[in-house]
């Protein structure tokens, strides 16, 4: 059990997919304009990660080695389709603001990376906790980035104005602001890592 908790916890800080592994940066850059978008994207990606890790781990002995990537893609695409249709049905507004980035989870390198690096080599329980940890880590990273960007770019968090009279820094709402925030946070993570060692 202690082992499983460790598999879960590593995705949050030590092997955080965004800040340490630097995977899945494309949706991170695109979606982190607002906290609401970030939560939606994070939940969708976590669901896909969990589902695909479970299935791939349970059928890992039957997948032929040579065509494993197409097999993973089929499984991942199934879960992405489920997530996308659910989002369209229950939260059409979120679906509109996330746009193409939900279907693009199919080729998200976090999902494929965990399938290739972890789920195909480990048992069901470990894969489950690994997927969950990575998903939560990704969601937290997205929320952190989008909170900084939404606050600086529009003076709001989740649509609530925090500081009155704040002059929004438009650049943080733009792609260049996303690159700026992610770059600085990556630097900060490396600084903290160096300090700990």
């Amino acid at each position: 059990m202690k082992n499983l908790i460790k598999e879960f916890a590593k995705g949050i800080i030590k092997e955080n997919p965004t800040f340490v592994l630097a995977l899945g940066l494309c949706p991170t850059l695109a979606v982190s304009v607002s906290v609401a978008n970030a939560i939606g994207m994070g939940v969708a990606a976590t669901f896909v990660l969990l589902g695909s890790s479970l299935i791939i781990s349970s059928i890992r002995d039957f997948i032929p080695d040579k065509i494993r990537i197409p097999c993973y893609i089929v499984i991942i695409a199934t879960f992405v389709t489920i997530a996308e249709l659910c989002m369209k049905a229950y939260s059409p507004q979120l679906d509109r603001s996330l746009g193409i980035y939900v279907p693009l989870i199919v080729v998200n390198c976090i999902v494929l990376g965990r399938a290739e690096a972890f789920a195909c080599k480990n048992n069901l329980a470990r894969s489950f906790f690994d997927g969950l940890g990575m998903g939560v880590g990704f969601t937290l990273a997205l929320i952190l980035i989008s909170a900084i960007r939404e606050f600086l770019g529009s003076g709001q968090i989740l649509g609530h104005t925090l500081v009155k009279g704040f002059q929004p820094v438009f650049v943080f709402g733009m792609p260049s602001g996303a690159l700026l925030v992610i770059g600085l946070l990556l630097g900060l993570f490396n600084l903290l890592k160096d300090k700990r060692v």
Partner: protein
Amino acid sequence: MINNLIVSSSPHIHKQASISRIMWTVVISLIPAGIAGVIIFGLDALWVTLVAVVAAVLTELIFGIWAKKKITVLDGSAVITGILLAFNLPSGVPLWLPIVGAVFSIAIGKQVFGGLGQNIFNPALVGRVFLMASWPKYMTTFTQPLRAGAGYDAITSATPLAMLKEGKLLEHISYLDLFLGKHGGCIGEVCILALLIGAALLLIKGYISWHIPVTYIFTTAVLAYIFGAAQLFHGDWLFHILSGGLILGAFFMATDYVATPLTAKGQLIFGIGCGLLTAVIRIWGGYPEGVSYAILMMNAATPFIDRYTKCRIYGSK
């Protein structure tokens, strides 16, 4: 006797130039344009400049202490960044704008790369583009030059280039007015006369070479002449040279030591590239002015230019 024998490593002939001497000379060379800006736009211009300089110097100091490096404030490079940033702002901006811009210039434009000598972009332009993208409303509201009988506030005017972009005719602006700076614009860019005095000082001292400014201005002028009007070869090239930030950019920002090519050949390519981009943005782009973007883009291309213009080692093929 033995004390007179000085043993030192090469180079044995020393020039008096040092980083701080060059930087403070550049500061002096910028003073005429600053005075002109204050005369043209009033005391607001002075406050904006002072605030930007103080903010830049303090940021440099704080970063130096935090990173436990040699304190580099006195070499004057942060002062230049502050002045150049302020020269690229309209005089009517609220005073927190130059502070934010200067902190961003020094912190993000320079110190995160490792300080002076490591920055890949001109720090002042990084700050200006950040402000431009963040608060376009303040950055494009230009104060009209002071005139007898006119009140201080509330009179705003577009820059000549913005008027050109909107297709308004410019018959009331003469070349002499453009040369002396009697029109709306940023603090330090309007008075060409004062800028040329400062540039002459730097050229005579040998602190900047002619390669970048001349090719930059020439390329922009040629392209403006060819494509600047509806009919080919009818563009008003002199207007394009005298308006906007071209002179300020070409002599003081495109010649930044750190972010520009090392060799003369590389500098020629750099100047032509800057001129090309400036003319393209001015004539076909969405913005009326393109000097800062042009210089920043060519800054990004500098390592590439340097790689292909390496000097041949004497004796090698």
